[in-house]
């Protein structure tokens, strides 16, 4: 029988070797190899003295020494260079309707090929995908899919688009850009569901490649952002303005968490800001919170709160306001802002009836913004 038991001497030898190789500048990854994690050099960072790097991808602006990963858990300093550990390694792949993003004004003939990697640059205490958004790639089960393979699979499954979804796509921007470029070549639209916590420079590079954005505007209250989300509001508002100015399709989603970000004044401030900066035709979704992750003690959002927020936004002049995570609710549907008729009837993420022709209301001919 083969002897597998390690002695204390063996253990000390191994530990010593590790310390030695670390000291002379070899990372354990280089030594043993980690075939499941990518070693593609990251973009949007700068080298700073002392072998450190400063990440310029998101407003966190992480400064990391060798061997350390960013707050996102997926970008790592290896000997003074920054590497992405998730290039080609999504941990979620699925075929999902775009209504789940939610994108209600961007109808596609088929659901989207959706992917996500581990990690996130925020730490939302109510994250429903925390099992991989709050983990590094070494802690999740990952697939191996090059950008070309993603496109092949999307085409094989007759997907209507590629959707970067579930976790924050910003953190795997290198992978995203390569996929999006290839998707352009085969005329597959790309969708990005993001919290918008990204710096302007990388965002500007994404704008020509992404056809539709869903931005999670987590709340209109910096205190809530700091305590429960991990970022700050201002950069997200800048992102929204940039996307809008670039003329890309944009929808906004705000998950209302009872007592934390559902104060009437915060909702009003958000509505007023959208109206003043993005206009009245940007679709806005108020979605229902369900106890998750670190907010298990908070009750689900009462339907009446969502209803009230929706009505307030409509009264303020916003034309397309929805309630989400309440299947069957009247706020699931699209109504014509001119004649008030029901134009798109939905049940959750399923379109039941389309009473329009290429976005024109069948009753009054009013043209609804979006892709139909």
């Amino acid at each position, binding site marked *: 029988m083969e002897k597998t038991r390690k002695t204390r001497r063996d253990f000390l030898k191994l530990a010593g070797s590790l310390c030695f190789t670390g000291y002379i500048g070899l990372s354990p990854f280089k030594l043993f190899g980690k075939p499941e994690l990518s070693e593609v050099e990251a973009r949007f960072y700068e080298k700073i003295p002392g072998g450190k790097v400063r990440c310029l991808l998101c407003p966190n602006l992480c400064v990391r020494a060798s061997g350390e990963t960013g707050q996102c858990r997926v970008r790592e300093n290896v000997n003074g260079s920054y590497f992405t550990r998730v290039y080609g390694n999504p941990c*979620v*792949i*699925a*075929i999902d309707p775009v209504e*789940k*993003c*939610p994108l209600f004004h961007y109808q596609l003939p088929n659901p989207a090929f959706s992917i*996500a990697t581990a990690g996130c640059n925020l730490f939302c205490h109510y994250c*429903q*995908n925390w099992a*991989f958004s709050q983990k590094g790639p070494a802690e999740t089960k990952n*697939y191996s*899919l090059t950008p070309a*393979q993603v496109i092949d*699979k999307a085409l094989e*499954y007759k997907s209507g688009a590629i959707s970067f*979804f*579930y976790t924050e796509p910003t953190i795997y921007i290198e992978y995203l850009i390569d996929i999006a470029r290839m998707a352009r070549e085969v005329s597959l639209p790309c969708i990005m*569901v993001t919290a918008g916590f990204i710096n302007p420079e990388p965002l500007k590079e994404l704008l020509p490649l992404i056809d539709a954005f869903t931005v*999670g505007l987590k709340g209109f209250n910096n205190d809530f952002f700091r305590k429960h989300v991990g970022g700050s509001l201002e950069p997200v508002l800048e992102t929204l303005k940039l996307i809008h100015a670039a003329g890309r399709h944009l929808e906004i*989603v705000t*998950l209302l968490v*009872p007592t934390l970000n559902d104060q009437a004044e915060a909702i009003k401030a958000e509505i007023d800001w959208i109206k003043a900066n993005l206009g009245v035709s940007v679709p806005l*979704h108020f*979605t*229902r919170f*369900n*106890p998750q992750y670190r907010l*298990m*003690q*908070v*009750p*689900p959002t*009462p*339907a*009446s709160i969502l209803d009230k927020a929706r009505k307030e936004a409509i009264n303020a002049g916003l034309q397309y306001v929805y309630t*989400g*995570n*309440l*299947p*069957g*609710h*009247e706020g*699931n*549907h699209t109504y014509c802002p001119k004649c008030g008729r*029901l134009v798109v*009837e*939905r*049940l*959750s*993420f399923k379109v*039941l*009836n389309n009473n329009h022709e290429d976005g024109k209301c069948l009753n009054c001919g009013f043209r609804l913004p979006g892709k139909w």
Partner: protein
Amino acid sequence: MYLEDNMYISPRSAGRLMLLLVFLLFCPSFANTAQAVPRVQGMEELEELREEISLLNLLRGLYLSEDQLMQLCEIAVEADNAVKSTASPILRDRKEIVATFADLRNRLFMAPGQETQSQQKAQQINDRLKEAQENVREHLARLETRMASVMTSAQLEIIEGFVPCLIPPRDLKNPVRVGQAGAAEGPLARMTELIYATPEDVWNERKMILIGKVVQKIEEESGKLSDAMRNDLLNRLSATAKKIRTTDPVDFALKKGDLADELLLIDHTRRGARGHKALGKVGKWFLSETALRILPRWKDAMAAGMDQVTEADSTND
């Protein structure tokens, strides 16, 4: 309520009698009322409560507007009136009806040939009951159409998919949410995952135990299978399991739902034929006596702000 000069029936008993007659009206004609399973007497109240709980679970998932609720209440009252107006002449002749049928029963204990007259009389009454039943059904079908027009297609789809329950199914209580990775996963999806992820040596050793459990569950739900049917099912499930296990990881992630459906080995798209005048689910839920009791209370509760949740949901997903 007085049926005869010397016979007083309390309002409560009259209500029960009315219920009984309404039940008779809704039942198929006497020709086919034989119950395969004896009913447990004295548990009617529990059945009523079950039905009320189910309806409330459904209402919680429908998000009816105030206006919709008002209209539904009106139609439910109209349905009740229609049933009552049809039932009242039958209720008036109740003694005669019961006596005629009792007479026929008694004559069937006698020598053959003595029952002919009673049979004819009972048949006439039975025809009258059937006619009343048809009339009520037609009326209720019209009311059901009106009721359906009050609701949105989305609400109708929820009603269509709803099954009576004490605890609402996960997708009604807690639907797959915006941005959530992975769809609502039921036992079939978990079984599919298990079949896929089980290591080869364990699978080879235990596959028949696992598949046997699926068959056992099917037998619990649908009754005992013959040996031939069970073997056939085991073979078909083994073939499906083999297909699941040989799927590429990426493809498995993309079509896990379809593979789980294949485990069912039935065609989802096939639906049972429907009787021409049979009530649909909208009618069954909302034109019932239960709806008549529950809808006004639900309307009042909604107006009083009952959805202001004070406790955290224990759902942990």
